């Protein structure tokens, strides 16, 4: 019996390592999930003089997409956001993270603008409060103002079909 211990330990180790191979260490689960979204107030792009206040979104299901013109991965997810915006089911807010207004507007002019409003976070302070550590990141916020999902890295079709869409359906169906 005792002779089997090393084998059992070895198999357990192999098991853990095998599981580890399937995980992406870049995806750190956000502590914000199912917590109230951090409140913020930011000027919009192009500057309109009225700030965007996250509190104004209370009662709505919405998406906050963190992006920047310097972010290469943002280019790959952009068409998916444009498609989603075309359906007009929920507001998509673009948090322009550590960018300059000129570069951001030129980028959107070239690739299309999926955002209802573009929020100017050039200092990155709002990003910091939302725990952004790699752009792009996408948050889904429910009617009560809670963060329900965070996607780290560029959105892809699989994530949209399997996670984002079903979640949005569920949240939109919920009474406000």
């Amino acid at each position, binding site marked *: 019996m*005792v002779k089997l211990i090393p084998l059992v330990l070895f198999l357990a180790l192999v098991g853990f390592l095998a599981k580890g191979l399937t995980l992406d260490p*870049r995806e*750190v*689960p956000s502590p*914000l999930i199912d917590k109230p979204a951090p409140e913020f107030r930011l000027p919009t792009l192009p500057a309109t003089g009225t700030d965007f206040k996250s509190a104004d979104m209370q009662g709505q299901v919405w998406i906050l997409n963190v992006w920047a013109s310097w972010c290469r991965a943002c280019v790959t997810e952009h068409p998916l956001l444009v498609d989603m915006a075309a359906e007009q089911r929920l507001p998509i807010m673009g948090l322009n993270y550590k960018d300059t207004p000129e570069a951001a507007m030129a980028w959107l002019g070239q690739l299309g603008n999926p955002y209802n409003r573009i929020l100017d976070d050039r200092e990155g302070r709002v990003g*910091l409060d939302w*725990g952004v550590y790699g752009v792009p990141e996408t948050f889904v916020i429910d009617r009560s103002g809670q963060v329900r999902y965070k996607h780290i890295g560029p959105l892809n079709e699989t994530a949209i079909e399997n996670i984002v869409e079903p979640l949005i359906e569920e949240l939109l169906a919920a009474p406000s």
Partner: protein
Amino acid sequence: MNTLLRLCSIVVATALLTGGSSRLHSAESVLSFQNPKQEALYNQLIQEYRCLKCQNQNLADSAADLAGDLRREIHMRIVEGKSRDEIDSYLVARYGDFVLYRPPFKATTYLLWIGPFVLLAVALVYAVRLGRRGKHAVAEAGAGQLDEARRLLGK
């Protein structure tokens, strides 16, 4: 002699590398503190937080933009007189326990903290058992061989 030389060069290389990394953020304006205690806390804390952007570096070593921002936030909080626990919870609220290189002792980390000791205990028990069985085996063989020797010697 050769090993000694190699050791020396490793030490020198490490010193150069770490020296290089601290020079990296000395470029960010010289930080001021109200007292040496605050400075010591700052230097300790940035060693103990992980940079989420480049996950195997701490905030002190990371050249990532985000690490710079977080160092700035930590510095600001220390000068405001915030405690270590308050700064811990500021970071954990945003990035989770993963940001701490020294994770807290709680239900989800019991395995992490206690696991190695459990493994050590299992290994010790196993080693002791093996050792005992080995001794018995030697004793038995010893007795058998002694009898055989006596028989051969005709005694």
